[in-house]
């Protein structure tokens, strides 16, 4: 691999001239139609997509269709006798207060982790990209926080954030002469704690992602700006941020989808409590659908939740798309 092929300047050129490839070099010399570029390219392009489509159909589409089917039945998961019940399950979803609370927390969790993680991860990545002592140590450490499995981390944090006076964090507070805090014993505090831990774990991961994009920014842009006398903040706003847009698109997309699908962390930390305050939709799907032998109800929940995810993700795509165009 040569440095030449990845020359950033070339990448930038290709951005502007990318569309030229479609109409370019059409110097067709009586080749049979099946050997023409258009056909070969289209066929092979389809071929490259077949494995991913097969995965999608077998592992997602077919099971999802079955889930939709079960959502209209009284299937328990245990009993092979299945009866159609129409929209009963859907009606139950909308009249169950615990599910509505769960929905609220899931949305709160997804939005706040996406926003806060992004706001912290970008400056963190910029800092990690500058010169300082212990740089590789700090980079490794931040990233490493996202390494252990979230359910394990959740349980470890439930010890640290124990509301008892002897809890790990509270004992530190008490020894400093402060009052102990009922971390996980209070509905709102528990919500805050779960969100905090999610951000704690994700920030290094996403900063690493941004770091990869930062390092692809051509340095001559900064050199030019320095010649023009731009301050550090101006450089950040006018060069770094716009160049990071693709990174932001990927990172927020991942954050929001993972946020909506979150299961391990709240489950490990609070099991959804106190009350239903940190219950998530995914946990509700598992609890209702499988543990409580109401697979039909769980399926209805899953169907509605999938639709809700689509709306949120399309909204996110539209928003980041608009931002990309604005800066492009």
């Amino acid at each position, binding site marked *: 691999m040569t440095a030449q092929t990845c020359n950033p300047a070339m990448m930038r050129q290709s951005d502007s001239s990318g569309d030229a490839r479609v109409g370019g070099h059409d110097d067709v010399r009586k080749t049979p139609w099946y050997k023409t570029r258009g056909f070969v390219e289209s066929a*092979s*392009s389809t071929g490259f997509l077949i494995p991913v489509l097969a995965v999608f159909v077998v592992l997602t589409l*077919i099971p999802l269709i079955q889930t939709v089917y079960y959502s209209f039945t009284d299937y328990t998961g245990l009993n092979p006798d299945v009866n159609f019940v129409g929209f009963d399950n859907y009606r139950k979803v909308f009249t169950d207060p615990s599910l509505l609370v769960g929905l609220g927390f899931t949305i709160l969790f997804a939005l706040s982790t996406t926003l806060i993680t992004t706001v912290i991860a970008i400056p963190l990545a910029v800092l990690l990209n500058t010169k300082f002592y212990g740089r590789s140590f700090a980079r490794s450490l931040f990233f490493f926080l996202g390494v252990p*499995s979230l*359910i394990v981390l959740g349980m470890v944090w439930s010890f*640290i954030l124990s509301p008892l006076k002897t809890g790990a964090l509270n004992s530190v507070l008490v020894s400093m002469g402060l009052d102990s805090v009922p971390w996980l014993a209070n509905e709102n505090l528990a919500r805050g704690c779960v969100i905090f831990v999610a951000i704690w774990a994700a920030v290094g991961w996403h900063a*690493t992602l941004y770091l*990869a994009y930062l*390092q692809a920014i051509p340095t001559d842009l900064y050199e030019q700006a320095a010649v023009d006398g731009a301050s550090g903040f101006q450089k950040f706003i006018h060069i770094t941020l716009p160049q990071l847009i693709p990174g932001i698109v990927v990172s927020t997309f991942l954050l929001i989808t993972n946020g909506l699908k979150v299961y391990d962390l709240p489950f490990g930390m609070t099991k959804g409590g106190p009350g239903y305050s940190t219950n998530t939709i995914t946990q509700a799907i598992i609890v209702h659908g499988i543990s409580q032998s109401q697979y039909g109800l769980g399926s209805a929940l899953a169907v509605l939740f999938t639709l809700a995810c689509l709306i949120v993700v399309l909204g996110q795509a539209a928003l980041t798309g608009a931002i990309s165009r604005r800066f492009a």
Partner: protein
Amino acid sequence: MNKLKPSTRAKIGVWARTILINAVAIVMALPLYYIIVNSFKTSIDMAKSPFGLPETWSIQNYIDAFANLPIARSFLNSLIVTVVAVFLQLFIGSLAAYGMILRKSWFTAGVGAVLMIAFCIPLQATLIPQYRMEANLHLVNTLWGLIALYLVNSIFCYFLIVGYMRKLPMEVLEAARIDGAGPFKIYYKIVLPMITPILATVVVFQTLSTWNDFLQPNVFLSSTDNRTIILQVFNSMSQFTTNWPAFMTITVIALVPVFVFFIFCQKWIVSGLVAGSVKG
């Protein structure tokens, strides 16, 4: 301050950042310290001083863990599942990304949209149908069955890779084609080397998420011999008699290989990224 020489200011900046970032990093890492230090304590020690150093450093928890649990076997299972699954995910995902950039049409646009939708579907929504499917194929409680499930993540790989691939210099691909290289050859010989930085990133991320997965092994693997290491960690806990230092110990044991992998790969990612941004 403004009167300081630029070199002096830069030095101050370096030191300020050094102190700030390292301090934050250390505070953020306290929970990791908490896990490690408690793995050397007894239950009672741990409750008495959660953040303190153990009164006596004891490796008894580690001895017990290796004596009581088939840890080596679980490691091997995790290793097999992770290596094979990540390789396949990477292959399928990068191939799909390549197919997408090769040509823009209503078809690729449709596939892109479908994949995006697919990515939004929570695993829990398809769990039981997947289980029934694998049960019919006798794949339940096998490592291959688990690997097959993880192929869903190639959609995730595709998303990470396609963004990077769109930035590739199309002239190089064009040139190769004029030289008579077929699409697959271009993919293998030209595209893959050019996207190494993002591939490395994806390998690291996918390795971690596969290694750490709990939900699917928990549902799909039932016999002791097939357990992954994370499942083993969970199995060490039970309804009434959890020994938390033992739990911390097994957590540490499960983390060590990931940590080693991470140390090696981190160098690798950095070198890949550096190669990607050499001044031309």
